[in-house]
């Protein structure tokens, strides 16, 4: 049986560089989290809450849909 895997992809790293080469620490301070949370977000190891997603989008001055993308992928059936 095929299963679906949901992922929230993000463009944080690209947007940081496009916004005056913002550091992870600077973004973390603006979003009210630690640098480690930003690192985990960029590595895809953590999905943000709605509040954090909006705070990060506000830090970049861009809509939240431009920062985060909801993806549903099909996982192949396990043998």
């Amino acid at each position, binding site marked *: 049986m095929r299963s679906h895997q949901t992922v929230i992809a993000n463009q944080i790293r690209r947007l940081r560089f496009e916004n005056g080469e913002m550091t992870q620490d600077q973004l973390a301070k603006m979003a*009210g*989290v*630690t640098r*480690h*949370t930003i690192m*985990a977000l960029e*590595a*895809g*190891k*953590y*999905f*943000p*809450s709605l*509040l*954090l997603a909006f705070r990060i989008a506000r830090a970049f001055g861009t809509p939240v849909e431009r920062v985060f993308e909801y993806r549903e992928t099909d996982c192949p059936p396990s043998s």
Partner: protein
Amino acid sequence: MSDSEKWAWWALGVVLLTIGAYAAFLLFIGHGPATASVFALLALTALPASSRRYFRGRTFDEREREIANKALRAGCGAVWLVFIGLVLAIGFVKGWDATLVLPVWNLAETLWWAAVVVVGVEAVTTLILSRGGAHA
């Protein structure tokens, strides 16, 4: 390394130190009320700055809070599992109608061991979730 990871490494070290000290006491003075004194070492978990962060007005961010909650649940779950395992083991070995006679210091020691299990499992879980992600 985040504050949570720093605390976890320190707490793991304190747990291993406590277990090592307990083993040393067992070796040299045998099992008795005096061996419970090693559990005072658990107070060392309060020593690092990461343990006193609340007093400096710093709290967890959402990811650290999620990791901390999962780690605490894992620690408490581990104690519950150990307790069930002990009850089952004693029941099968001594019989379900057997009576246990324990000195009071033994009961107190049991509580300290439960604290060791909670802190140890909490620390290990914190490290695993911090490295591998906290959204699973």
